[in-house]
């Protein structure tokens, strides 16, 4: 019902890739910065929480992307030489919703960790 005759749109997948790469790069940047400034035992737990949330959000984002790319993957496994598939709007919308939740979770994590760090630093002043 939801499928159209249009070929699979790779552009959506590219956009998702861009978004996820940006948020992962940003998180790694912050983590590397923290590592330069604070090497404290008490921060180990905070790092673990931070990385754990980041990993979860990455998994969510990747899940969304896999759902989005499902027709393409299916075509590849079916050895469809044309590698063309049809757009499933319902699946695409679910994929984007899941991906977006992961994206927002990553950013909230990034900001939360930064604020936590700032508070910790300010307390030592």
């Amino acid at each position: 019902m939801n499928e159209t005759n249009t070929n699979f749109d790779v552009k959506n997948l590219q956009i998702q890739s861009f978004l996820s790469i940006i948020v992962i790069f940003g998180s790694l940047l912050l983590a590397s910065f923290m590592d330069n400034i604070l090497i404290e035992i008490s921060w180990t737990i905070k790092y673990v929480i931070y990385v754990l949330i980041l990993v979860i959000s990455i998994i969510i984002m990747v899940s969304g992307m896999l759902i989005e790319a499902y027709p393409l993957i299916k075509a590849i496994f079916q050895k469809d030489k044309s590698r063309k598939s049809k757009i499933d709007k319902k699946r695409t919308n679910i994929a984007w919703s899941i991906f977006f939740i992961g994206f927002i979770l990553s950013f909230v994590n990034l900001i939360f960790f930064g604020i936590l760090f700032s508070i910790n630093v300010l307390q030592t002043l």
Partner: protein
Amino acid sequence: MIKEKYYFMTICLLLLSANIFNIYMSGETIPNNIDTGYIENDRSNPITSTKNEFDVFSKVEYDTCSKVAWYIVEILSKRGIETSILFSKAIVISSDSILIVIGHGYLKGEQYYIGDFSSNMITKLSIGKKYIALLACYSSLINLKNEYMLVYDSITTLQASVNDLISFLGFNCNYEAIIPSIKLFSLDSGGSDEGGSDGENFFEFMIASTYYDGVFLRYDLNSENSANQYGNFIRAHPGVIFEINCGGDITIAEERTYFFGLLRREVETTEYHYIYCKQYGEFRKVIIEDNGYIIGFENHLFIVTYNFIADKGTVDEIRDVNNIKFEKDVDEEPDTDGMSNEEAIIAAALIGATATIASACIIGGITALVAGAKVASYVTILGLSASTVLTVVGIGLIVLGVVVLTYFFIELIQYLSDG
């Protein structure tokens, strides 16, 4: 597709630049000591020692500290290793490959200190050093990952730790010769938030005795003798760079100034030519009157002996090598006087963290905006148009980034101006 590639490359470059800037900025807080030494001796593996506690209540004395410091410096200098010494509430001896910290190890809140050096500061100092010796009780609490380390997971004493240091450095020294002149004392002498410490007031004990007048902790001004002792010590060791730090408690500012005045007189009336005020890692302006006397002090002295200059080159060469700036060379430097090294690290950390978060928000926001413009029209997120959602999120992130960045920079400027 080409546009996307350029966009992606630009973002990667931006993030890479920011990361490099972070590393550079955090590295800026490391003191630039004169380090040209090297070590050829074979070394042992990291040692962790456990010693028995004794003589907890003995006092740290200047003679003991100076003897130990000079003993170590002498050992190193005989092997062609030039070192700088920092006298503070701890003694820090460093070369390009070695860092030795001697002092009283204690916990203040959650953070471990040796003297007035926090674990953060020691960590920063340890970067790039091959051999680390932290001669203080419980120094294993500092989480270092250097190649060779001498740390303690329990209480130790000065004598025992110096003995360990000699083994650690692989030197075959006549240690027995110095033992009789070292008065035993515990490096963990009870200094903590609860007070009652001689180790906590390491530096003060070198310059003055203290007493409590019922309201304030007062310092007897017996600094004259201490300054004389210090001057003698410095004069006795030409070729060594002395950095003297008396940071921390602002309530002793007057006594500190008085002591530095006395010390200045000591060194100025002898063969020592130059004294520099210095914060860690950054040389501050030197105020020299026409008659050659230094009239201004912060809480640092940096003394280069006459012999050192004679051995190593002209004043200009020394200055060039070490980025020493005379007053006339200081051009409109940002006025950060009064900031300690730790405060400078914190300020740098705040700027860096804020800039990182804000830039991440701004870059993420721009990406979301672009994504919103490019995403297919039929895509929805949680029932809403993906284009609209991404645009709103993008604008929100950009605004958040700009606001955070602006707010923190205003706070930082105020802090610096107040400081």
